[in-house]
């Protein structure tokens, strides 16, 4: 298939049109091919195609502030396939950028998508990485995003994972971050599973510098026979380091949810908190919506819709 047609179909599967504005940088990767690419000043992308995927190096040069979010679209349109993506991202000192990454496998019956990301955010740099997934209704895929993130002094990073459409299938997210002095990290994931979906999320942040801050948020809903296992680890090792873990999992029907918060503090002036709520929806929330005339099912759906929505205010 022609690249242009592949690009169109990738965007179509996420309910969007192709990016046409010259001010918006974008990169499209289908399977192991880079099918589209448009860059803006200060953004460098080198990509190498491999047998079953792509290796890329993304760089935002020192002090560059990219106004419009960069669009990256990964995907496999056929029912079967393997896509292994290795990405190294460097935000140089004082750079600022946001990436809106869409990962789309709309027809997957037997698809494997692996992501091995290494992200270095330089001193005072700011980076936002939003990852939105579209999966097939059958959930015939395994998604394995792993990332290692390094925040230098005064850097900021916010990442957010959301499944927009389709079934999870099997998902194994593992993010590990190191947060230097004065740097701020926000990681969140919002996923709902059903059928025989399997969700495993492991987020870890090491607060190694003074006044380093991190908030790890995980909101999950499982129903039917879906299972979710969430492990959040926060380690505070320096003075005035602050961290918070927030995990909410709503379980319906035969769903299963598990949360393991691990907090470690190695400095008397550090402070870490965690909050986990697992099980049925909150009775007061439910009763309030029922008192608006919604039946229990509709009220529960609305509460979960909120929980999984991306509108959450930043807590830092």
């Amino acid at each position, binding site marked *: 298939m022609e690249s242009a047609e592949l690009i169109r179909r990738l965007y179509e599967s996420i309910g969007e049109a192709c990016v046409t504005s010259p001010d918006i940088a974008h990169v499209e990767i289908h399977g192991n091919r880079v099918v589209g690419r448009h860059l803006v000043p200060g953004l460098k992308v080198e990509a190498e195609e491999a047998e079953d995927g792509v290796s890329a190096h993304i760089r935002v040069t020192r002090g560059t502030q990219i106004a419009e979010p960069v669009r990256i679209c990964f995907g496999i349109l056929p029912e079967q396939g393997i896509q292994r993506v290795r990405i190294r991202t460097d935000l140089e000192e004082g750079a600022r950028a946001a990436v809106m990454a869409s990962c789309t496998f709309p027809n997957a019956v037997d698809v494997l998508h692996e992501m091995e990301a290494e992200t270095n955010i330089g001193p005072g740099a700011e980076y936002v990485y939003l990852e939105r997934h579209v999966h097939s209704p059958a959930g015939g895929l395994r998604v394995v995003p792993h990332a290692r993130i390094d925040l230098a002094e005064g850097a900021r990073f916010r990442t957010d994972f959301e499944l927009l459409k389709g079934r999870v299938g099997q998902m194994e997210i593992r993010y590990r971050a190191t947060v230097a002095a004065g740097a701020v990290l926000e990681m969140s994931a919002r996923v709902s599973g059903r059928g025989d979906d399997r969700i495993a999320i492991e987020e870890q942040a090491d607060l190694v510098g003074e006044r380093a801050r991190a908030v790890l948020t995980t909101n999950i809903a499982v129903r039917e026979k879906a299972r979710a296992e969430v492990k959040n680890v926060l380690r505070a090792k320096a003075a005035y380091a602050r961290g918070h873990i927030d995990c909410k999992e709503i379980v319906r029907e035969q769903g299963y949810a598990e949360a393991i918060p691990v907090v470690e503090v190695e400095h008397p002036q550090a402070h870490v908190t965690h909050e986990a709520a697992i099980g049925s929806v909150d009775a007061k929330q439910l009763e309030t919506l029922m008192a*608006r005339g919604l039946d229990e099912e509709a*009220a529960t759906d609305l509460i979960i*819709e*909120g929980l999984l929505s991306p509108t959450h205010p930043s807590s830092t």
Partner: protein
Amino acid sequence: MSSDSILELQEIILELGGRRILDCLSMAFWPGHVHAVVGPNGAGKSTLASMIMGLGDYRAHGGDVRFEDRSIKELSIDQRARLGIALAWQEPARYEGLTVRRFVGAGAADATEAALRRRLEQVALDPDRYLDRAVDRTLSGGERKRIELASILAQEPRLVMMDEPDSGIDVEALGRIFDAIRLLREEGVTVLLITHSQTVLEQADHAFLICCGRMVAKGSVAKIKEFYGERCLPCDHQNAPREDCNGER
């Protein structure tokens, strides 16, 4: 009791944690009128509202609750809501991620953008600033109460219970809430205000004073104001349901 009432409570007895919270309480509410229920902390006012709405802990009770001459005792919360009964909680719930737009729109009779905006304006909130915010901990208590009231107005109910509508509300917004109450009355909606405040009490046509889950007095607002102000309070009992309750039985 008169069958012209829209809601009638017949000898309600409700026990929680082994204590009698509502003690043989009978009340009638007239359609299109504003009623106030006053009483000290722990008197059972919020319990009364929860019982009428059919909330979980408050469903098992003696006596009967009749709405338009029909027992609603066995009805679920949403069934009662669909009959037109609405409750604004003393402490409204918070929701993660759920926007004001979705929340107010959830049970709205008219969920168009224009209608939702009008509902927020009715409670003195700027729709541009609030519609896309989440009904979560970033809203103040007073803001949440006003959003809750907006959602109830949007429901276009027939009977509205407002549990302490003034708590956490500033003077200006309270004026708007009183306007909303007047409008409800003009539209023929029955209102039940639960309050400690004389100003809120003054919005009502009739009032009830309850204490220890029992009716102590009922009648005109003037009468209850006097009774509440001069004979009931200060009151040194602990508002435990005992026989030495200060009031006429």
